[in-house]
């Protein structure tokens, strides 16, 4: 039985990205969504894996999440 695997988190991020594709600023909105609803542990887990299987838009959003976290310290 699978747990909190990176594949599952990547699936979630990709699913969010697919549903926000038509947003005016998709990458920023996806990043905001993930920061608002995921725990830091989940975010770190996904960020730690460089080839997690993210779609381009999800990857762009995760880069924004990473940048914001680095900035926040």
């Amino acid at each position: 039985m699978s747990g909190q695997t990176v594949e599952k988190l990547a699936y979630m991020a990709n699913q969010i990205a697919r549903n926000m594709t038509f947003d005016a600023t998709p990458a920023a909105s996806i990043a905001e969504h993930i920061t608002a609803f995921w725990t830091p542990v989940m975010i770190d887990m996904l960020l730690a894996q460089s080839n997690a299987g993210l779609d381009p838009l999800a990857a762009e959003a995760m880069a924004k999440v990473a940048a914001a976290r680095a900035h926040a310290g």
Partner: protein
Amino acid sequence: MGYERQADFGTPEVRSDQEVTCFIDGREVSVPAGTTVMRAAALTGGSIPKLCATDNLRQFGSCRLCLVEIDGMRGTPASCTTPVAEGMKVHTQTPRLQKLRKGVMELYISDHPLDCLTCSANNDCELQDQAAAVGLRDVRFGYEGENHLGAPTDTSNPYFDFDPSKCIVCSRCVRACDEVQGTFALTIEGRGFGSKVSAGLASDDYFSSECVSCGACVQACPTATLQEKAVKEIGKPERAVVTTCAYCGVGCTFRAEMRGEQLVRMVPWKDGKANRGHSCVKGRFAWGYAQHQERILSPMIRESIDQPWREVNWEEALTYTANEINRIRDQYGRNALGGITSSRCTNEETFLVQKLIRAGFGTNNVDTCARVCHSPTGYGLKTTFGTSAGTQDFDSVEDSDVVLVIGANPTDGHPVFASRMKRRLRQGAKLIVIDPRRTDLVRSPHIAADYHLPLRPGTNVAVLTALAHVIVTEGLADEAFIRERCDWDEYQHWAEFVSAERNSPEFLAPVTGVEADAIRGAARLYASGGNGAIYYGLGVTEHSQGSSTVMAIANLAMATGNIGRRGVGVNPLRGQNNVQGACDMGSFPHELSGYRHVSDAATRALFEAEWGVAIDPEPGLRIPNMLDAATDGTFKAIYIQGEDILQSDPDTKHVAAGLAAMECVIVHDLFLNETANYAHVFLPGSTFLEKNGTFTNAERRIQPVRKVMEPINGYEDWQVTQELARAIGLDWNYTHPSEIMDEIARLTPTFTGVNYKRLDAEGSLQWPVNDKAPDGSPIMHVDGFVRGRGKFVVTDYVPTDERTGPRFPLLLTTGRILSQYNVGAQTRRTANSVWHEEDLLEIHPTDAENRGVKSGDWVRLASRSGETTLRAHVTDRVAPGVVYTTFHHPATQANVVTTDYSDWATNCPEYKVTAVQITPSNGPSDWQEDYEAQATLSRRIEGTAMEPAE
């Protein structure tokens, strides 16, 4: 307080701007124009004898007991059918009237048994009261000749009897069933003296008729003809306490009528603003579970789930639990802990559970079962309108011209609201139903949907976008409203998107399975048919695009200007009684009460000052993530109040694995539910009859729940949570739930004006109740959206990843039925089970024939997740390619089959779409058998023979 029936004004209240003044027996009274003489008299405190009139039914004028004399008018008109006129002078007691009434009464009594003294309705019978009121002492006609006194009693309904020998053929029951309930199950058969009440065909008894056991006829009956069995068994009630139903989100209020500590009956409260005196079979009759022998009354603990339970006292249970919580926090960190609040419990209880977790456990890992039902509503409506709640009160439907129902089955899920909606539909409002299944609403007595769009499960967004396409491209959008109330740029971006050819009904027809013409017709009707109101349910939210669907609905309402006044709006029909409240109370891991994100420093500061602890600024885990983390070994302990996640959450095997991986599972509930099979601590819970608090219904209406009897387990649920908090070292000292509400009001801007004193005085309040809306808010977004400008969100149709294929060619969708409630823990423990002994699989005749399946056969239902078996019911209610079942019985384990796909924004599980295959079978699956064995083992209690049968 002694027992009195609720006041009956004889005829319904009339709404009118005009006042008329008249004189009743010399007393001056002013009433709205159109009010009857009978009602006006009742308002002066007088009472005119009556039998066929009662104030929740239209006047009928058949018994002739209510005659009056009016100056300047000939004869003796019936006061129940005569409206008052300006200056009218009415006399209700004259010798002439007395004689006439006595004569009428004598005729009635001559065909009525004279065993008042031994009748179960003695002293609670209108016929008896009225006979006394007209001064009838003896009967001249005698009892010889034809009468109905020997007619046998129909006892087929489990909750009430029909004894025709006592019937006076006033037809109040028939009219109640027609007008109030809308089922049209009863008729008056025959004519004149031979006439009698009948439940459909002459051969039918109540049980085999169309009757849905709502109880409206019983309530309307002025004699003991239709009477609750419990009154016969227990006796006449001695006192009544007003409280709120604990079943569904309609939130009906009832008078709990008591004899000593025993509940005799629940009678819908006429002043209840949600139900207006009506009820359904669940709230009215299915409360017997409160005293069910399987209720667990003593706390129990065990170190591991393969051990039998050990009964302990409260102190030992709480100390053990507190030690475990402290141990796990020390060993694994605070984020290894979490909890789940219940949509069945009160606002106060829910608030305390999330407070215990945030302030006591020190983590935001708190979630609620609303996760699996209406979390997309919260997300979608907050994003578009700014408030995570429906926009209307139930009364609003009285002003709707077009009702659009999508993904909801109100006659089963929200019966009392459905009755009110059906009444409006019978008056001529138009109806659009969007549902894969032909629900009862599509065609019922005197109602036929103008459009039924039987879409393929999983294509809600495509259908809604196609509707929007028609509205925009045919110029039906309300541009003035949009320019004034919404963000115009966002609207244009959205309008451009929906106008694209790929979103046209014609283009999408192969995807949705709905004919383009029907979509075009429905769109035109909704956009231009007058006040358009949308009602939706779990068929909208429980999808991988649940949140998108809610936003697509909000887009439609904004685009057509159907928001911000009576008769319109976007209305989620909430499943459980307090789903709205549980969400309001800060049950989600990212939000504090009133839907404020934990990252907001000012909000946190407010709570930190009140609670004296730091609040984590990062969101916590949602239920599925908690289970994932448990499987990973990082999540170890959970406190679950009033929820059965093993049965109600998707992918049962995954939930079981997550729970089995935890070191301390604390279940606080009434019964050893399925989740308790994996628990280490069981804390007995109390029923709604045994506690004080409030529930918030689907209209945002906060209503009192009042203790009518002492908790037989010893404590109300909030007290247990408080004791647990104290055991882990928190200094909590609430002495009454009203103090918890005061704290909620201090911390939550939408609740500032809420307190028990006001709730007692006003009956209920609809939030927001604050400086801006001191008397509450029946309708939201009246002068503008809560978020400022309404936000149009582009909702692109993204097909679910759950696809049919050669192995799993059919789509399974799930739902519920009237007599059962959710996982059925309560209703299965009442006589309601006579209506639903097991979950059945509905399958279309073509699909059934292809598989050699007949109604009643056992079939194997298999998906990628797992398989189960149940019996088939062949019906064309479902389309070819679609199968349907309910999830009320643990033996079925319908969620063994559902997948862990979920809504993209909220992770609300996709219950409504699973690719499956059906094959004939000859009995339970391996999983069912293994599960049953494990459950039996797990339910053992040391020193007792108790192995509760499920």
